[in-house]
């Protein structure tokens, strides 16, 4: 008996010793694991925070050293910091690997000791007396069913909530623009040179026809534009954009349509001339900012005579900029920009016909990457491309010496081309009712039927009137008549059907702005800032004349009840205040 008891006592004694040591081991390893865990988390967190901090510092230092290439101390600093970052990365990696193993070890010991405590102090099973078994079972089952039902209802509610959230419907994409709203808004805005399709026709007919710059009548506001430029204003919604430049800066301006306030100025970096090269000095008539800007409602794009392109969002943040290299253009690069969906179209004509340097370039509006570029067999030109909707298709139509070429805008493949021009082509083409009108300065007006493919010189030229042609202004057509305005002030009206001259009128003033059509009226802006509003009909009839009081080279932009005119110094908003 006694030995038995002794045995049992001994056994329980050893058991409780094991038990106690197991508990102690469990506690110690538990705390150890916790500490290692916290350490690992801290290591991870610190490496992220410190790393990002150091990396931004290093970037700043590197940018600084670009500007001061001879600063030895800066270089030494950069090298030291870079070494520090690299060493810290390796150390952090090492710490986390070692820490992982330590944590694993700690947890293993913890689990073993916990399990030992479990086995050493086992409880004997003590089944409880069951009460009314049937009732209990039924009650429990009922409760379980209700809980299950609640779970299902919860799942149902969650899925209902998720299903009712607004979804993106992929079928809602417009044909013309990239979305329904953009296409509509594009039609109502003045997003590029001579309006949405480059025709100079305003979709708004309620524009003012009476103002006076000297008295201020009909002029809502006028704001000084910081730097000069020949580019015309573009309008989208309540924003007006202009660009300007001088040898020191290339800038983009955003004005508020209601108040005329200059909301922001964006700078486009001018790529520095290479060593030993003379800085570009463009012709004074052209200036640094001759090409008109373009917008697609998300971004605004500007190109300058130096071949530098900039893209900004409507808040003034520069999204990207790109340098295409200084184009070889005798008068200075002046082709305005055009936009098709998310692509920015640049007619980059340069050099002679044989040089093979000209190209039509499409940049992706979001990134500035070249989406496609197609070589053009033409010499340098100063006309701008237009994006015309011809049937179901959109075509980019370009004019230069000697070809008028239409391209498919998504990929840049040629659709048709016609050889009919010679010389320095500055007027841009227009499209009206199945005909493309192109002008050869001092020589002719050509009408080309669209719908052809390939070389259509022999087949699709409807007529060619060789009387004369303007050298700067682009034509305007209302479908019945096509109007040409020469720089010296000669306005000629031709019939669209066969090109015969109907009438002509000499204003005896100089014009640089291209004519615009508003309803059945022609708006012609002279160099002196005088707007002649005449009837666009079979006979010359002047309706009214409005003075601005400032010289103008740029073409006007039209909006709902408003006209925006850029004078040499100021931007004017013409409209009535009600």
């Amino acid at each position, binding site marked *: 008996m006694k030995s038995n008891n002794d045995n049992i006592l001994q056994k329980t004694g050893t058991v409780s010793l094991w038990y106690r040591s197991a508990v102690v081991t469990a506690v110690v390893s538990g705390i150890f694991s916790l500490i290692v865990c916290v350490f690992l988390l801290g290591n991870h967190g610190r490496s992220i925070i410190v790393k990002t901090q150091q990396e931004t510092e290093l970037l700043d230092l590197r940018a600084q050293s670009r500007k001061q290439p001879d600063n030895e101390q800066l270089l030494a600093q950069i090298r030291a910091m870079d070494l520090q970052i690299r060493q810290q990365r390796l150390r952090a990696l090492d710490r986390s690997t070692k820490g992982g193993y330590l944590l694993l070890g700690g947890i293993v010991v913890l689990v073993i000791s*916990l399990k030992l405590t479990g086995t050493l102090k086992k409880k004997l099973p003590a089944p409880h007396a069951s009460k009314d078994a049937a009732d209990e079972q039924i009650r429990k089952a009922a409760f379980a069913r209700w809980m299950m039902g609640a779970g299902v209802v919860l799942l149902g509610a969650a899925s209902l909530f998720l299903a009712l959230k607004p979804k993106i419907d*992929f079928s809602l994409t417009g044909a013309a623009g990239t979305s329904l709203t953009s296409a509509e808004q594009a039609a109502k805005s003045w997003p590029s040179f001579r309006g949405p399709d480059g025709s100079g026709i305003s979709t708004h007919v309620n524009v003012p026809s009476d103002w006076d710059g000297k008295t201020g009548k009909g002029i809502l506001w006028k704001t000084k534009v910081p730097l000069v430029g020949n580019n015309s204003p573009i309008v989208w919604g309540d924003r007006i954009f202009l660009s300007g430049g001088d040898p020191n800066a290339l800038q983009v301006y955003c004005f508020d349509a209601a108040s005329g306030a200059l909301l922001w100025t964006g700078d486009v970096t001018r790529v520095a001339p290479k060593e030993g090269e003379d800085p570009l000095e463009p012709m004074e008539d052209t200036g640094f900012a001759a090409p008109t800007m373009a917008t697609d409602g998300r971004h605004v794009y500007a190109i300058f005579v130096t071949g530098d392109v900039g893209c900004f969002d409507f808040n003034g943040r520069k999204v990207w900029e790109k340098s295409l290299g200084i184009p070889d253009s005798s008068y200075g690069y002046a082709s305005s920009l055009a936009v098709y969906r998310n692509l920015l179209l640049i007619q980059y004509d340069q050099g002679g016909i044989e040089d093979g340097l000209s190209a039509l370039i499409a940049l992706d509006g979001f990134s500035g990457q*070249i989406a496609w570029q197609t070589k053009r067999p033409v010499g340098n030109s100063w006309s701008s491309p237009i994006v015309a909707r011809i049937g179901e298709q959109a075509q980019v139509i370009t004019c230069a010496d000697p070809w008028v070429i239409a391209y498919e805008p998504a990929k840049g493949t040629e659709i048709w081309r016609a050889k009919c021009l010679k010389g320095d082509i500055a007027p841009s083409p227009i499209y009206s009712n199945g005909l493309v009108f192109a002008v050869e300065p001092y020589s002719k007006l050509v009408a080309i039927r669209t719908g052809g493919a390939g070389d259509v010189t022999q087949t699709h030229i409807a007529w060619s009137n060789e009387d004369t042609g303007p050298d700067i202004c682009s034509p305007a057509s209302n479908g019945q008549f096509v109007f040409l305005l020469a720089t010296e002030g000669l306005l000629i009206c031709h019939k669209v059907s066969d090109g015969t001259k109907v009438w002509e009128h000499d204003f005896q003033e100089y014009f640089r702005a291209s004519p615009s059509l508003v309803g059945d009226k022609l708006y012609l802006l002279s160099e002196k800032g005088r707007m002649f509003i005449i009837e666009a009909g079979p006979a010359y009839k002047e309706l009214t004349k409005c003075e601005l009081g400032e010289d103008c080279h740029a073409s006007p932009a039209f909006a709902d009840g408003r006209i925006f005119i850029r004078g040499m110094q100021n931007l004017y908003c013409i409209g009535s205040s009600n």
Partner: protein
Amino acid sequence: MIRSAYVITGIAVLLVSCGLVWAVERFPPPDFEGGHQLPSPTTPHPRQDIYEYIDVAVLLAALGLASYLVLKKRSRRAIFALTVFSLLYFGFWREGCICPVGATQNIVLSIFDAAYVVPITVAAFFLLPLVFTLFFGRTFCAAVCPLGAIQDVVLCRPVAVPNWAESGLRLLAYVYLGAAVLFAATSSAFVICRYDPFISVFRLTGSLNILILSGCLLLIGVFIGRPYCRFLCPYGVILRQLSRLSRRRVTITPDECIRCKLCEDACPFGAIRKPAAQWSGQDYRVAKKRLALLVLALPVLILLGGWAGSSLKAVTARGHATVRLAERIYLEETGVVTDTTDASSAFRATGKPIEQLYKDASSIRARFGLGGWFFGGFVGLVAGLKLIGLSVWRQRKDYEADRASCLACSRCFEYCPREHVRLNKTKDIKS
């Protein structure tokens, strides 16, 4: 030197094309006068195929051994030893991949995607545990599955999960299975692999979120037995159904049950079923009516579930990368967002038409719509069957291990006096 850098910059700017160009050789490979030998890039090969076959062989052996140990030898110690071996081999050595749980997705993908061929070793990993379960019950779960092994090893203070919660929580596993099949069938994602909670422990590395998930699940597993196995494992759902049909099954007693009640609280996983009590006539009639109602409600639940699953297609379709890309492009095109992501700019650089992307996304959504009917219908079916199951009672006279829930861990054997008799530890005991 500096000038050449600028010259290169200037030329390069003109030459920059969208994306990276495939092998444009701007600078012709040099002609070395000194006869310099060009080194070759090293190409270290991946794990040899033979090791994959060895893994399958080890799996087969472990399954056979586990079945023997559970059904014939009935030794908890041996099972635990095998569990530890599986944890070390399939868990820490093979780092938990490929596992039968994830292999489900590979099989589903190979059914729906003609271009994807499941390697034979992966198919073996999927099939072997299922075949063994059809014969021997869930012996895979007992000692072979590394996920189960790690949970079993950390289980120290089992706490019983109340009955009413058990069934409802298990619905999550069915939802998980349905979701895994849906996303694998549409080639969107392998969700089981993505949210595998224990693989980061096996690899000793992983994203912070998954590591935290692992830690939480292991901590829960210290108290609640095998939470992943019982309430989340999608493969376990299949094993449950097959185990119900198995030829041999795990019994608590080696021969006969004497209803001593000593094993009532033996199972940390709540798989022991008590003998069913006799009901009064009235209770029986009420239960019959309720059962009839629930059986009628079953097709309604299936339809409702299917409809809900299908109407969620806009949400579930976002699991597919193409749909996510299309949505992002749409937001950019309509001006809702002003900047681009890596994915959207990479897509734009390819020059593929956006309309085609939208068409692809719409057709993927349609597939999710159809799949959603099956997914939701499946969940509805399971919920309905569970409700029915909670209204039906088998006439049970003995203490039994629930055919579907028993994980064959062998913990309950030593609670049975008959077992002690079998092991010659005590004299014969009669009821």
